[in-house]
């Protein structure tokens, strides 16, 4: 396989593996815990390395996963003490564990390949050079195998525990009363997050882990209100960010991991502005429409108010409305056009407006409300 295909394949697998648990991180409003875990796993890697003295030993993954879970437990314990809020607890725990790891590396492992820069940004371009060979046969990049396994693990766990995760995320009290312990589910889920963070961290670094776990699900949530669709969209968005990120990095000659992370952000910004229902543009459009609708009601009430009065001939003049209701000529025209279209008013001559029976009813109802 050509190198660039291997890198992209790895990126796609990492992206999908991260996005799956990311959906529930976002829904449980614990997005930041992914940041904490993806940093503090370094301590587990370092400690396990001191134990086995081999950077490729599987014990490193076990150690890293254990510190991931330790992070969650420490955050929870601090939070539960009632003296620290949850966000502060996260910000207290992971820098402590991460800095401890950095100190240990600097002091005792300076000569080996465990440098802080590649921990943060990873070096996905180098991942394919670490191969997995069995009996002299090259089976491909080791990270690809590991992340493929983690992807299958995550997909399997989500399928198996779909309804349990759903109910314990939506309504933990109900889940508990039905006999699905939210604590057990929480730690099972956080174990998945830790394993994923460890595997992905090795391949792409901790910043991209957070970007791939959080941004695609947050983007998907703007685009759908079905959980299953949200999961599918999250995976698709993460994969798209991975592939476009790779080519953007190639074109611009920049860090691949950084470029992929940036692409997850680009996807979010696009959805934030353009999402059909929840996007900024959609809500601006909605507000403008509501303003015209409401102003049409104002117009109807105004006309009703002056119907049959002495000043009716003045108050129903189109040019008077601009003064009375302080509408710009352009806005007044839009309001009147719409009111005519829905049959509330009709024009008499060029200058005068008259309520239709429907408009009269609408105005009366509108005033009661």
């Amino acid at each position, binding site marked *: 396989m050509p190198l660039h295909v291997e890198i992209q394949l790895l990126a796609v697998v990492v992206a999908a593996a991260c996005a799956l648990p990311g959906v529930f991180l976002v829904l449980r409003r614990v997005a930041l815990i992914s940041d904490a875990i993806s940093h503090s796993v370094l301590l587990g890697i370092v400690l396990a390395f001191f134990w086995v003295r081999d950077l490729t030993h599987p014990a490193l993954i076990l150690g890293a996963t254990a510190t991931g879970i330790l992070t969650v437990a420490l955050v929870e314990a601090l939070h539960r003490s009632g003296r620290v809020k949850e966000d502060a607890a996260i910000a207290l725990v992971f820098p402590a564990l991460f800095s401890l790891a950095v100190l240990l590396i600097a002091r005792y492992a300076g000569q080996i390949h465990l440098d802080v820069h590649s921990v943060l940004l990873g070096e996905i371009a180098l991942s394919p050079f670490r191969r997995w060979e069995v009996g002299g046969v090259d089976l491909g990049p080791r990270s690809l195998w590991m992340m493929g396994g983690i992807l299958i693990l995550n997909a399997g766990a989500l399928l198996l525990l779909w309804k349990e995760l759903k109910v314990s995320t939506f309504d933990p009290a109900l889940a*508990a009363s039905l006999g699905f312990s939210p604590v057990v589910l929480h730690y099972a889920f956080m174990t998945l997050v830790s394993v994923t963070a460890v595997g992905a961290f090795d391949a792409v670094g901790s910043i991209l882990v957070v970007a791939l776990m959080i941004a695609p699900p947050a983007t998907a949530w703007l685009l759908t209100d079905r959980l299953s669709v949200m999961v599918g969209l999250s995976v698709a968005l993460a994969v798209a960010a991975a592939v476009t990120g790779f080519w953007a990095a190639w074109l611009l000659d920049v860090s691949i991991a950084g470029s992929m992370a940036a692409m997850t952000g680009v996807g979010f910004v696009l959805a934030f502005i353009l999402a059909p229902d929840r996007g900024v543009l959609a809500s601006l459009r909605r507000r403008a429409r509501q303003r015209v609708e409401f102003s049409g009601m104002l117009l109807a009430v105004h006309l009703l108010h002056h119907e049959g009065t002495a000043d009716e001939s003045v108050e129903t003049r189109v040019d008077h409305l601009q003064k009375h209701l302080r509408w710009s000529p352009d806005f007044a025209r839009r309001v009147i056009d719409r009111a005519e279209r829905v049959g509330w008013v009709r024009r008499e001559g060029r200058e005068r407006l008259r309520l239709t029976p429907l408009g009269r009813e609408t105005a009366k109802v509108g005033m009661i409300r």
Partner: protein
Amino acid sequence: MSNGMPPSRDDAPPGHPRGRTWNRAGDDPDPSVPALEVDDLTVAYREQPVLWDVDLRIRQGSATAIVGPNGAGKTTLIRSILGLVPRAAGRVRILGSPLEDVRRQVAYVPQRGSVDWDFPTSVEDVVLMGTYGHLGWFRRPGKREREAARRALERVEMAAFAHRQISELSGGQQQRVFLARALVQEARVHFLDEPFQGVDARTERSIMDVLHELRDRGDTVIAVHHSLQTVPEYFDGVVLLNVRLIAAGPVDAVFTDENLRTAYGGRIPYRSPTSPTSPPPPGASPAAGPPPPLEG
């Protein structure tokens, strides 16, 4: 009818006639066994008692209001009975057994505000969650469960909303969805935490109709309730709580000025049942007679 079937602090005599409308899995529990027995229940939060030595008996086939001032521990009482907050001391029996053995007989409707209504899911899906307890781990709801969810939604007049996103619902509709979710649990003892909070008068009436239906077929309804005015109309029994148990029993015996004054520390936000403008006289059951006209 369950006229005069209030909770009592003694073991109640048997003999409640059941108006079962459908059969449910599991054996009928002996009707003489109390629906709920609580002995010496104490719950503390950081060594501060939130509930202090509560003893309670509530008989099957009754509707009971849990009433008390803010901070009285009403929600905590329900949550500790359901094992959602740890008990410092005390024993709880539901239908004569520990909770773990009768989980499927127990339904819980938490406060509407306790969940995130922006969660990406539909009304039908929320109701289906009520079937998860019967399904157990790993099994997914199927055709039968969907059918049960549809029936429950019809009963709370929400069938037309089955495929709506839950964030589009009004407060009253959310509450009815929660009630439908409790109905598909096919439980016998139903705990509700402020089912009428933020709900209009018409919805309140239709929720109460469903709860009375449950009671009339022999189920037990236990609800945290805020409006003292409607206690005599809606409920057979009342639990007056203010950290300690002030009184518990039939509405006409327990819902007195004196007890209310004790519970609320002298200020009763309500005219007593004996005052002339109060709803039905003591002894009247809400199930007897035609329902009062709807307000609004």
